[in-house]
């Protein structure tokens, strides 16, 4: 697999693209890719991620730079800029329960037509969605999510793109790896094939299109 500099990867991502971005409060978020997107003044992006982190970190930097038109996230409570832009009508925010969000992304990547979940029944989340009864229990039908790009952070990648993750930096990354048309991974280290044992690989390299090289 050929590697790319973060700047070159940012050039592959057009304005208006939809991006799945890994991370939870910026832990497990590809920071160099985000910095490169801001440096090339990307705009009109749709970001699908767990949260918008906080100003100055991870996805929070994209929000502050005005690069995001629409965010599909579960939580914005720790980023006052996201809340302010949303209330001012500058940023469209779709709030999705966290467990529903990850399963919608998974469904998009594994060829399923949606998810049936009890989460959100009887709340605002139910509005406009079909309720389906299965074996006497009611569920919301939630649709699959795919995106133009998945931007992942990994701990190690090997030369064929196999990825492994560390502790709470897994979060959405292994799931998003299946759901982007183009998958770009930013590892902290790139190691020779064999260093990551097969049992430790969480994202097989066949899913990864580009690896971000070290600075």
């Amino acid at each position: 697999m050929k590697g790319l500099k973060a700047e070159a990867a940012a050039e592959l991502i057009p304005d208006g693209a939809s991006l799945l971005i890994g991370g939870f409060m910026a832990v497990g978020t590809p920071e160099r890719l985000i910095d490169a997107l801001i440096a090339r003044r990307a705009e009109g992006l749709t970001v699908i991620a767990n949260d918008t982190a906080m100003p100055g970190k991870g996805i929070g930097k994209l929000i502050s730079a005005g690069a995001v038109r629409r965010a599909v996230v579960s939580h914005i409570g720790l980023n006052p800029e996201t809340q302010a832009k949303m209330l001012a009508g500058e940023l469209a925010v779709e709030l999705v329960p966290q467990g529903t969000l990850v399963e919608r992304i998974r469904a998009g990547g594994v060829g399923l037509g949606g998810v049936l979940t009890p989460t959100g029944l009887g709340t605002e989340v139910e509005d406009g969605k079909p309720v389906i009864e299965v074996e006497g229990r009611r569920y919301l039908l939630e649709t699959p999510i795919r995106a133009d790009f998945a931007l992942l952070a990994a701990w190690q990648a090997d030369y064929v793109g196999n990825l492994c993750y560390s502790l709470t930096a897994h979060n959405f990354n292994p799931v998003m790896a299946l759901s982007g048309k183009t998958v770009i991974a930013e590892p902290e280290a790139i190691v020779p094939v064999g260093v990551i044992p097969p049992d430790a690989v969480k994202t097989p390299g066949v899913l990864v299109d580009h690896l971000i090289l070290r600075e």
Partner: protein
Amino acid sequence: MEAKELIARRVAQEIAPGMLVNLGIGLPSLVANFVPAERGVFFQAENGVIGLGARPPEGMQDPHLTDAGGGFVTAVPGAASIDSAMSFGLIRGGHLDMTVLGGLEVDEAGMLANWKVPGKMVPGMGGAMDLVTGAARVVVAMQHSARGGSKIVPKCSLPLTSLRRVSLVVTDLAVIEPSDAGLVLRERAPGVSVAAIRAATAARLIVPEEVPEMRLG
């Protein structure tokens, strides 16, 4: 004793040996301080760890090991790191024994609102809707009143978190158990009278003959 510590100490009494427990950010996260290690409890943080440990010493933080509020933590022996699909599979699938969350309002039907004040504060539901829908037991840990108004109300005016009735509400004044008949006053905070609790509660309370003081361990 400070209100938050009182609430956390009382909630800790609900946690039995061997449980898997999720603590929300803020006040609920204090509960872990009052659960002795020998109880063998595993705490889950929904961002991806089972076996959450104490805060690390200054300068020893692992940037890959945080809790759901983004704060640095450690992991206990026997811990497991998991991705978000596994984490919420545990939560929604009924594998989580207890969740402890904060609340904005709880009503007479035991419904919880804790994720949005329309037009003012919209933090988002994060994992709360999945936690309240899926956990075996749902404990709300919150102050009894906010800005002089009762948070325990006849009917929630704020958007609901789930249609699932919560199991128990622990405040700085009382322990309240929602039931088919309504909200049952189970315990009083030390030195607080039933009359004082009634006066501070907008919702109707069912008051048994005996309302003992809280057990604080």
